[in-house]
């Protein structure tokens, strides 16, 4: 479904991606793990068209998308929950969710999805008229994921959903991610620092170090792979 071919990108004057290639099949959950600063977020931002790809190619359903502007990429059904969540702070919860459905015209479908996410995260229904910026970190993460679900994505990009959240909430969110993937058969590309969590939900995983992918295997295999630990703790 998504294919990165020898992708290179710069963040400011830093070469963040030094030629990475990977593939995602439809319906899979793929995790990209690695320590901070490895280039994981840049990978997602390059797929979404925010950071331009300097070399290489991004194919979505066999069509190159690396020259398209971000809004056109979103329109193809690639939705991102960026790092730090980026909730619109002065829009209410409902308005934030509305923004997710910005490109959609099927009113009944939108309504249905809205009910679905409010069921997934009942706390959002309680907070529906509160400004997004006043939510707690966990609630913001839930809102960010819901907002992305509202786009009815074909491919959902999740950037560090566990960032800054208490373990119990992280667990809850990961369970819902898995559940959503199963129920809707949406392909998910998950970037995480928290390897244990990410690999548990993933079908396959890639380990990234310093702008390149060093290991790729199934989730279970990576969980027990000692080299992964080394990549993190520098042993």
């Amino acid at each position, binding site marked *: 479904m998504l294919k990165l071919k020898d992708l290179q990108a710069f963040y400011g004057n830093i070469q963040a991606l030094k030629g990475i290639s990977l593939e995602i099949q439809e319906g899979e959950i793929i995790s990209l793990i690695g320590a901070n600063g490895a280039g994981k977020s840049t990978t997602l931002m390059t797929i979404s068209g925010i950071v331009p790809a300097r070399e290489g190619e991004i194919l979505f359903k066999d069509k190159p998308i690396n020259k398209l502007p971000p809004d056109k990429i979103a329109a193809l059904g690639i939705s991102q929950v960026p790092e730090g969540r980026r909730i619109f702070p002065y829009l209410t919860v409902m308005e934030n969710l509305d923004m*997710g459905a910005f490109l959609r015209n099927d009113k009944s479908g939108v309504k249905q999805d809205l009910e679905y996410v409010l069921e997934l995260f009942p706390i959002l229904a309680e907070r529906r008229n509160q400004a997004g910026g006043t939510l707690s970190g966990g609630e913001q993460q839930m809102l960010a994921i819901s907002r992305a679900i509202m786009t009815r994505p074909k491919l959902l990009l999740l950037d560090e959903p566990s960032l800054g959240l208490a373990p119990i909430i992280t667990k809850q969110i990961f369970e819902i991610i898995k559940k959503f993937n199963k129920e809707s058969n949406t392909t998910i590309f998950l970037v995480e620092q928290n390897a244990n969590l990410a690999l548990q939900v993933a079908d396959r995983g890639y380990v990234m170090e310093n702008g390149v992918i060093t290991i790729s295997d199934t989730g279970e295999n990576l969980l027990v792979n000692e080299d992964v630990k080394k990549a993190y703790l520098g042993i």
Partner: protein
Amino acid sequence: MDFSYLGQLLLGGLTRGSIYALLALGYTMVYGIIELINFAHGDIYMVGAFTALIASTVLLNYGVPHLAAIILAGVAAVIYSSAYGYTVEKIAYKPLRNASRLAPLISAIGASLFLESYVLLLQTSDFLPFPALIPNFKFWAPYESLFSSTELVILITTIVVMILLTVLIKFTKIGKAMRATSQDRVMAALMGINVDRVISITFIVGSAIAAIGGVLIASHIGQINFYMGFIAGIKAFVAAVLGGIGSMPGAVLGSFVLGLSESLFTGYVSSDYQDVFAFTILVAILIFRPSGLLGRSENQKV
């Protein structure tokens, strides 16, 4: 104390405030979305007034009925101001979206200067008489001396425009896109919003409102020239800062506060120094409450 004099000043202040509000909204919208002081905004308003004058003269010359001519002239002003606002953004600001802060500011001054000299060259440097487009209403005759029909129309139009704008921003799709873009441009793009188009529309809407202000004030004062947008623009900017730049209710509140206090200052102190007064307010605000009456304070990111 002479209360009827005070009342007159307050009513005058209301009119003044309305005009400032129509202009200040444009400043605040543009600032909210691209953090730029659009120096050319006042000149967009001047172009609107000129277009209205030209259109109404031509139409009346060709025997179009008075009322139809007025409406068509107003429509022409709105269309042309919007078109100019859109073009100015495309040429002078869009190429500088990633430049340093100083560059678009200088470019904006250039755009302002360009519009002024363009009108000066192709039309005239003299003051042109502007017809009173709004007749004196019969039903309003008893109050005419206190608050003229024109002033009444200005106040009502302002209120209507503000309501329409609130509806646009709060409830329509494009309004939500505007708010989202002003809060987080990258995230808005990730949601599929065409940010460049939203910015263009912001300029168009702001300019259209300015054009309405331009036509109203011109018909109130009775004359226009190429320079009329400059001081009015600066004053409206003061009003926007006073209310808290980036905040729309702030712009309206700031405009009425400035309009009323300026009117009182003119009435009781001196009319020669009313502009000095406005600038003094600006400096005082910036020192004591830089985020304005209703503005949000911002945290500097490191």
